[in-house]
């Protein structure tokens, strides 16, 4: 999904003097290495050669000679869907972060600002507490998806309400968007608090684990459900890139340069809400990717969204899958929550970036 991205990004060295092409190639290699690592590394030891045999056999439909059933299942039904969901989530979350930073014209913006995560969390905990009987109404194969579907609806719904509140006379005020996001986020968090109060100890723990994020529950079904929304965000980002570049010059300047600023903002918010909502639904809340990855990508390829967005997608895949390898290996045979790993690595790194930048600029 990220391969097309690379080819669509216009070469931009001429204007920027930055190592754009080299940066994109580096991030693509990192993403590729992370995918290979996600398939080859795990607590269940399988020789890399056998992993290849299994993948090749699955691709050609042949029987893989001398491969145990468990090895096949670990590669094809555990690691592969996990890598796919991880790649989708990583790319989607990172691109969403970069897009929101562009819309808010602020490198510290985050998809959480428009209420996706708090809304999804409220719906998820409400489902944990009250949803079990509802899930029984769903057809059997979808029962396990009750929580992800609730989270997706909650995240997207909250964002649409916020976008609606921020629109006045057909214009979306970014400041109002920010405040409406804060207010509704706080409201959703309060609702989450009420749910946690009503929940049993075990429900509370289940919810807590969900908020920490994990690829542990990744299945092909989840990958298939999340893919259209995340791919939609990635495709949309290609069309948003020029407008976001112009928006960096200012809202009025973007309009003068020919951007339909209102359409750009609305399109960006909806694409982000759908993509992040689907990611959060598939994996729970995985923090810091949306903040740190675009920042890091910007340091290498520069702030132009035409290259920043594909670079963020590739680096997001690499960072999320890399973090997941750590999450699976550190406490094996148990698994650390993914959000814990990304925050443990992401937060200090982010601080270092901020301090370093201050040392240079300030």
């Amino acid at each position, binding site marked *: 999904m990220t391969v097309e991205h690379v080819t669509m990004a216009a070469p931009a060295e001429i*204007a*920027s*003097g930055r190592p754009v092409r080299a940066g994109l190639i580096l991030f693509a290699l990192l993403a590729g290495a992370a995918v290979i690592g996600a398939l080859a590394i795990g607590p269940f030891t399988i020789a890399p050669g056998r992993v290849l045999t299994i993948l090749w056999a699955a691709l050609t439909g042949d029987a893989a000679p001398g491969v145990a059933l468990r090895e096949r299942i670990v590669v094809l039904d555990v690691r592969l869907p996990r890598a796919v969901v991880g790649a989708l989530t990583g790319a989607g979350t990172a691109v969403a972060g970069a897009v929101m930073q562009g819309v808010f014209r602020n490198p510290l913006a985050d998809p959480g600002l428009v209420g996706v995560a708090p809304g999804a969390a409220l719906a998820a905990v409400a489902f944990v507490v009250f949803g079990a009987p509802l899930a029984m109404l769903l057809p059997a194969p979808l029962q396990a998806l009750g929580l992800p579907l609730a989270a997706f609806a909650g995240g997207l719904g909250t964002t649409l309400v916020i976008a609606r509140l921020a629109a006045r006379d057909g214009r979306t005020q970014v400041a109002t968007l920010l405040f409406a996001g804060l207010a509704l986020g706080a409201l959703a968090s309060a609702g989450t608090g009420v749910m946690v109060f009503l929940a049993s100890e075990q429900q509370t723990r289940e919810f807590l684990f969900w908020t920490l994020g994990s690829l542990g529950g990744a299945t092909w079904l989840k990958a298939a459900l999340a893919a259209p929304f995340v791919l939609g965000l990635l495709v949309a980002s290609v069309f948003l890139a020029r407008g976001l570049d112009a928006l960096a010059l*200012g809202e009025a300047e973007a309009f003068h340069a020919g951007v339909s600023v209102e359409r750009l903002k609305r399109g960006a918010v909806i694409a982000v809400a759908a993509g992040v909502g689907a990611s959060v639904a598939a994996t729970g809340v995985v923090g810091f990717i949306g903040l740190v990855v675009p920042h890091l990508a910007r340091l290498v390829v520069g*702030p132009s969204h035409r290259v920043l967005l594909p670079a963020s997608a590739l680096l997001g895949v690499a960072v999320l899958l890399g973090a997941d390898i750590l999450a699976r290996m550190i406490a094996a045979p148990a698994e650390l929550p993914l959000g814990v790993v990304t925050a443990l690595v992401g937060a200090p790194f982010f601080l270092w970036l901020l301090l370093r930048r201050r040392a240079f600029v300030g």
Partner: protein
Amino acid sequence: MMGMNMYRADNVSVAAGGRLLVEGASLAVQPGRVTVLVGPNGAGKSTLLKAMSGEHRLSSGRVTLDGVVITHLSPLALARRRAVLPQAAEVAFPFTAGEVIAAGLMAPDGRDGARIARLLGEVDLSGFAQRRYDSLSGGERQRVQLARILAQLELTRADAPSYLFLDEPTASLDLAHQLTVLRLARAHADKGGGVLAVLHDLNLAAMVADEIVVLAQGRIRAAGPAGEVIREEVLEAAFGVRVRVGIMPPGPFVLPQNVHWAG
């Protein structure tokens, strides 16, 4: 009044916060001509320019380009015909000067490095393409933005005249670069484009303008060639100061030494 081929405001009023900032202004920017808005602070010069650019909503009246109301044009269609130099532009991310120029260009070949380098040269910023925009001085930023909007108009249709809107383009520039900017504006008009500029300095206005429009308290007080408008009684009414206009060849100028408080 005149033919279709112009960028004009008809009886335009703009209100904000319950106050009329511009009232009943009519004005035509014509291909091949430089029109300059002058007037005291708060006269509504920038507001009128913004209203004409499409940035401000009108409370009444209309703005048309070749007879078409500009709000009926898409932002992209409008941008192909007019570009606006902002007064003070902050850029959100650490762009280089070259990237700032590229960022404002919606055309597919906007990243052409040779064009960017040439336009930076035209605003006396040769070799600045890879300098960080946020490390530049106010005047340098102003000229990067000028190069950006020149690039925007270069990439537009060649068959119809384009319009350059400049909001106090000389504000943070030294004397030499003030002249550079006005020379570029003049050149745009000489190539068949139209220019609308807000200027503070009456001397510069008189030097570059084909037509000077005097605004005070939101209304147009006078309009015409410099020789007709830069007159003692007009300026006294508009600025509230008594002046003595010196007419020395080749054009009129105002010496601050000759400025005194009115009344």
